[in-house]
């Protein structure tokens, strides 16, 4: 029996892969963007945001967790899947307090950039307007729970890279929230420091560096001119 070549089919294109690569990493390496939010090239996949949902041999699943296999037929950039992605974004937007005009992350926020790229024109659903706190106790970082999307990138970075376990996820369902590992529960009393990976990995404006807000003028921000599908592809394919 001849061995199948390590190639799968993505929207009609042949994508080569190394054994062990996921569909998402193989696609990005081949220069094809699949929208994703909680996936990060430096960390094992989390599979929680479901934005990278693709149809693999007729079944839907997250491209960040499904291993690439020879001969798979993968659909990603279809009106149906992009509609599902828009709905997921809308749910993320109404669940928190994502007030872009007042957010320092605006223009460089992955949630916002994906909403632009997928043309999310309105939140559609009823806003939760949850009452969440802001923790400004840390000298270098602001922790704004209003904007947290529970992607756990800070949890993963602090645990796997920094070896500090500063962040964790607590509660269930609507009550899920990030907690800080310190006696008082405040970020200022934790061991988070400015060199930590966890401090810089937040894709939204939940963990913000202090004293540099709005330092990049409108028109020069990360996603001001090119959509995330082009900006991040160039970034992550490196």
């Amino acid at each position, binding site marked *: 029996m001849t061995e199948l070549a390590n190639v799968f089919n993505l929207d009609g294109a042949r994508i080569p892969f190394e054994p062990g690569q996921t569909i998402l990493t193989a696609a990005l390496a081949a220069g094809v963007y699949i929208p994703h939010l909680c996936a990060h090239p430096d960390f094992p996949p989390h599979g929680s945001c479901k934005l990278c949902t693709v149809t693999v041999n007729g079944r839907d699943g997250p491209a960040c967790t499904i291993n690439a296999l020879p001969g798979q037929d993968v659909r990603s950039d279809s009106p149906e899947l992009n509609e599902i992605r828009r709905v997921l974004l809308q749910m993320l937007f109404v669940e928190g307090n994502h007030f872009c005009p007042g957010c320092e992350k605006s223009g460089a926020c992955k949630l916002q950039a994906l909403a632009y790229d997928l043309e999310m024109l*309105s939140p559609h659903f009823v806003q939760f307007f949850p009452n969440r706190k802001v923790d400004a106790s840390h000298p270098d970082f602001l922790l704004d729970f209003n904007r947290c999307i529970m992607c756990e990138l800070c949890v993963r970075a602090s645990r796997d890279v920094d070896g500090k376990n500063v962040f964790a996820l607590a509660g269930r369902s609507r009550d899920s929230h990030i907690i800080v590992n310190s006696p008082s529960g405040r970020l200022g009393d934790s061991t988070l420091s400015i060199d930590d990976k966890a401090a810089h990995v937040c894709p939204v404006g939940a963990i913000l560096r202090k004293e540099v807000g709005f330092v990049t003028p409108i028109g020069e921000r990360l996603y001001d001119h090119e959509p995330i599908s082009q900006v991040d592809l160039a970034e992550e394919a490196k």
Partner: protein
Amino acid sequence: MDVGTAPKKVKIATATLGGCFGCHMSLLDIDERLLELVQLVEFDRSPITDIKHCGPCDIGLIEGALCNAENVHVLREFRANCKFLVAVGACAINGGLPAQRNRFDVGDILQKVYSDTPDGRSRVPNDPELPLLLDKVYPIHDVVRIDYFIPGCPPSGDALWKFLNDLIGGRTPRLDYPQFHFD
């Protein structure tokens, strides 16, 4: 009289509910293209015309969120009269800046704002002419059906120009990437 040669103008009404008039400023920001626009449209109720009530219209542009009972009344009047109702800007679309009060009780806010006076006397406005505040600030699609959304705080003049051109020209309105922003 030469009847029937002049194309029928598209009727547009605009209103600001709980907003800052920034979106209307953006409409003026299309600059000299306003002259082109007035060849194609005529304005019904709008801060530009100062007409107080909206008659039958083709396009209604709504800026701002629903903050009080009068906002809801105006919005319903627009919905009843406009073929296409458009949510313009962040406040109309998701509550925007006015919705930052939603974490507080409206009664507490009024007490805090109007009772904290030097002589300690409460002066919460209670004139019957004043529209009552809603318990929360709502996006306009929570109350009436909305046909189109133009995001931005405010949407740029170019975005409004593109949108109106598409809609009046009979195309599905679509913003180009640089015009698509939430801030």
